[in-house]
């Protein structure tokens, strides 16, 4: 792991992804190529010296040199996300350190097994970095993203994901609306369950895909169990749990 000292980056763009999710792109004076799946720590300092820190997954691929995109969900009563949403504008500076994390990462090696990505809500962020990395590398091992959201307005990166699926037949986008699906929706519209996971695993035939699962604790727990029940070896399942509490 490279050195993780604090540095002052400059916000160069802020893009609303959904009503409660924004992507902050930050240019860094001391940028280190990251691995898809890694995160940065972000630290806010008040006048009196009080500091608050949170970790945010990197959404951008390592090919996007010199900067990082952090996709942030506005958390109820969130001390850090609340300030980022209300108090930060393009041109402002933010203190960050990273990249951090060496486990929930995808290196994009040419001979790597197919990819099964399962995300819940903002858990899609590190998975997006993997998909963007795969796209930039021009890799074509099969990849499936099973993305669970409650309602149509919560689909982070929707346009980019749909364009990616259109352009790349080896990538399959499976949206799952757990509360309210768009009109005429023929796809999944229930909580991720064992039957759904078994169907998705069957898409890979006899090959064991490398699974990355990221989302709220309860979802990750049940998906990891469901994937094992569907025949995936435990060592092929990597998990990252998070949510409003940092879980």
């Amino acid at each position, binding site marked *: *792991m490279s*050195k*993780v*000292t*604090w*540095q*002052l980056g400059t916000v160069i763009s802020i893009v609303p992804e959904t009503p409660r999710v924004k992507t902050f792109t930050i240019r860094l004076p001391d940028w280190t190529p990251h691995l898809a799946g890694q995160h940065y*720590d972000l*630290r*806010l*300092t*008040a*006048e009196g010296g*009080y*500091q*608050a*820190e*949170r*970790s945010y997954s990197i959404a951008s691929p390592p090919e996007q040199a010199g900067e990082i995109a952090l996709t942030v969900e506005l958390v109820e*009563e969130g*001390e850090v996300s*609340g*300030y980022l949403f209300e*108090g*930060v504008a393009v041109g*402002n*500076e*933010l*203190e960050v350190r990273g990249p*951090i*994390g*060496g*486990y*929930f990462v995808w290196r994009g090696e040419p001979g790597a097994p197919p990819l099964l990505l399962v995300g819940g809500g903002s858990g899609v962020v590190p998975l997006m970095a993997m998909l963007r990395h795969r796209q930039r590398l021009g890799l074509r091992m099969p990849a499936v993203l099973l993305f669970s959201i409650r309602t149509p307005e919560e689909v982070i990166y929707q346009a980019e994901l749909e364009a990616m699926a259109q352009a790349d037949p080896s990538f399959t986008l499976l949206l799952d609306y757990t509360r309210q699906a768009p009109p005429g929706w023929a796809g999944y519209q229930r909580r991720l369950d064992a039957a759904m996971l078994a169907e998705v695993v069957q898409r890979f035939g006899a090959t064991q895909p490398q699974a990355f699962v990221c989302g709220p*604790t309860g979802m*990750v*727990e049940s998906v*990891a*169990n469901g*994937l*094992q029940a569907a025949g995936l070896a*435990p*060592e092929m*399942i*990597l*998990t990252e*749990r*998070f*949510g409003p*509490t*940092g*879980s």
Partner: protein
Amino acid sequence: MGFFTNKGFQPKRPSNPKLPPGQYETTDFPVLTAGPTPRINLTNWEFRLEGLVEEPVKWSWEEFNKLPMQDFNLDIHCVTKWSKFDTHWRGVSVDTLLEHIKLKPEAQFVTQFCYGGYTTNLPLADLLGGKAFVGLQFEGQPLAPEHGGPARLVVPHLYFWKSAKWVQGLRYTADDEPGFWERGGYSMYGDPWKEQRYRDDDDDAASAGSIRL
């Protein structure tokens, strides 16, 4: 980075002296694990002390539950920034376990090893003197699998990744051998009060305050 402040940023919560730097309080009990929760059958479960010991020892689940237990009341600090105050546990103190073995003099460090393959390292001294225990109950209930049940080592004065879930035993070593997260760049020691999250925080932790100026 000396005097950088984020304009207009104000704490939303009153400061709490129980909170180490960079942490915030949660009332949930978040779960962090690198992979699926292992399924552990109590009939095969065992807990071992091995490595630099005169004679290794192991307990079955039934034998382990007959060891003298104590109640522990503690705060949890996770490296992912959350802290949880005033949790109640019941388990077997590591001091109690050590009464069953004789350590070799070279034993200075410990690797906790686990069902599922997880490991974490720490100095032997950090497990002694009532500072660590094998927790079997949390808030009056058997410890849930996602929180490390049936048994989790608990070392509350360090970041919580040093408290291994699904613990299977302790291996005594002469050297400080990096465990699972430590090999990935996390701190070898993990003192939340010194904010030793990553390996780079280990070196100059004591002088960090003065460097900042």
